[in-house]
């Protein structure tokens, strides 16, 4: 695999070269925290961050997004007929995405890219994007990526992986897309950096001190987990807000809404959350998940069991720790997974 050396002093100039062919997105710091946004001309990404407060999922899955548009004018021959709207799917480069978040997009892709249906909005943005990852040298106390099938130097879902070497980056070029971007930026100084990257990777992985325990989940009986007596206690504190789901890089649920003003209207989608009662409320008023215990259970069962069973690709969590840090009442997925895993263990022993 090709490794290219990028002097930090050359980074801004290289990114500027990209602007001709790419829209650039990167982490930017507001008053208190980092978030991904489009970089204006001359604006450099701020790569001095542990991770962004919200996940970068909005880059391919905006929180509110127009799907279709229509006229409601009765005299318009096209009236009341929903049509696709023009969208900008020109190439984009996402600079500085963390490996956990890139891995998360590959999990979400399983939902939006299926044999039966393809979600054009998500896929067009995803396919238009070249992901330049930034390896994690100093993972945080709530990072547990290494036990989720991801890692601080994980390459899945990335086109280039940048490894910080103080005065320069070593860039591992992982795909043709990545290669194209490096060429466009004029980064071409080959380096023999494999050993340095491996060394940094080993150190970073060792710096991750917490874990999520999931080994008994795949084999566990879903109904035994569902009916286990752990959920009342887990869910007691939950206030059923959408913080965990909205900050999560792997949560993809959404709502579809029509909004019309005058004779024009759009059909849009907005992020939705399994924590909200309205998510599953029938028109009759019947709600299959009518209590917060059921809703809390749904979130964890989906991430740690249903997804595991459906795709056989591990859990629907990349260990970024955002939900742990941001939950107003400190519900911790690591703790919940351990409790679920115990149920799985107990069942194993019973057999």
């Amino acid at each position, binding site marked *: 695999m090709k490794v290219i050396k990028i002097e930090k002093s050359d980074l801004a100039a290289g990114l500027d070269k990209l602007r001709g062919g790419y829209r650039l997105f990167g982490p930017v710091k507001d008053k208190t925290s980092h978030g991904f946004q489009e970089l204006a001309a001359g604006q450099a990404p701020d790569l001095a961050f542990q991770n962004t407060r919200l996940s970068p999922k909005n880059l391919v899955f905006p929180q509110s997004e127009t799907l279709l548009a229509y006229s409601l004018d009765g005299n318009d021959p096209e009236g*009341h*007929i929903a049509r*696709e709207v023009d969208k900008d799917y020109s190439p984009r480069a996402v600079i500085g995405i963390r490996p956990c978040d890139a891995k998360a997009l590959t999990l979400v892709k399983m939902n939006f890219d299926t044999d039966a*249906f393809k979600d054009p909005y998500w896929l067009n943005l995803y396919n238009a994007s070249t992901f330049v990852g930034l390896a994690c040298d100093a993972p945080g106390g709530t990072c547990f990526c290494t036990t989720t099938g991801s890692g601080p130097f994980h390459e899945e879902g990335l086109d280039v992986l940048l490894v910080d070497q103080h005065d320069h980056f070593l860039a591992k070029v992982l795909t043709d897309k990545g290669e194209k971007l490096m060429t466009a930026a004029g980064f071409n100084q080959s380096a023999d950096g494999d050993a340095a990257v491996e060394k940094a990777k080993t150190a970073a992985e060792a710096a991750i001190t917490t874990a999520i325990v999931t080994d008994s989940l795949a084999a566990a009986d*879903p109904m035994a987990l569902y009916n286990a007596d752990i959920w009342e206690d887990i869910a007691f504190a939950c206030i059923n807000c959408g913080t965990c789901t909205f900050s999560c890089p792997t949560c993809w649920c959404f709502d579809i809404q029509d909004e019309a003003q005058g004779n024009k209207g759009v059909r849009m989608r907005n992020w*939705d959350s399994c924590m909200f009662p309205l998510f*599953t409320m029938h028109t009759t008023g019947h709600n299959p998940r009518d209590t917060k215990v059921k809703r809390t259970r749904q979130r964890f069962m989906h991430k740690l069991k*249903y*997804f595991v*069973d459906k795709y056989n690709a591990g859990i629907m969590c990349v260990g970024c720790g955002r939900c742990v840090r941001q939950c107003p009442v400190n519900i911790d997925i690591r703790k919940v997974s351990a409790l679920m895993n115990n149920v799985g263990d107990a069942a194993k022993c019973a057999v």
Partner: protein
Amino acid sequence: MENPYLPYPVRIDDIIVESEDRSLKTFKFVFLDPDDEARFAYKAGQFAELSIAGVGEIPIGIASSPVEKGFIKFTVNKAGVVTTHLHNMKVGDIMGVRGPLGNWYPWEMLEGKNVLIVGGGFAFTTLRSSIIYMLDPANRSKFKDITVVYGARTPGMLLYKDELIEWEKRDDINVHITVDGTDDPDWKYNVGFVPPITEQKAPQGDADSYAIVCGPPIMIKFTQPVLETLGYDHDHIILSLENRMKCGIGMCGRCGIGRELVCKDGPVFTLAEVNQTPREY
């Protein structure tokens, strides 16, 4: 890339008031682009999203049958925002239909078998589609005995009355119509809830017999033990589930029961499958 969120434009061709309380209307749609009809090729048991610009979408079972050409039909109960708006629309109005969506009754598996259909209330729509499909001269020989038990609260609430009466007279299908109660002295069919009528009229179950059950939750609950007594195994009892839906294509996440999505992996499940999932519907 084909856009699964884009509805086919349709025109309302006819509206039939089905029930005496006017809460149920059948809408007949024709596609504005005749080629869309082929793209919309469906099987009995599937549903579609009825799509009204500026209002929203609603998932409704397809009441017309694949053997009926030139139109599609949906019977809609007036309940929420979209269905109320639809009930106020007129013949000639333009809207959209997105689909077909979901799976269908397992017609390949049902070939050569006895089929019992148990329906209640306005959940008879995809069952009508199924009956028309099975009774089609090209298909009737594929199935053994066909038995239908269908009930509603009153005679005035029965869907598709003309067809029911016609089927009742035929000898290639056994139709048992029932109502919860009636003060009509001329009522010549059954009176009683669907589960006991099923117990009296339905044939015994065996390896060659399947039951398709569709109706309100309370009916399903009390029909299940009846079918068990009659000898229908759980993997021979076929249900069609409902849940709140938005996308209809398995992406928006809300209709999940366990790992299954009602909109894409369903709505049709066997009772044996449903037993393996949380009852979150």
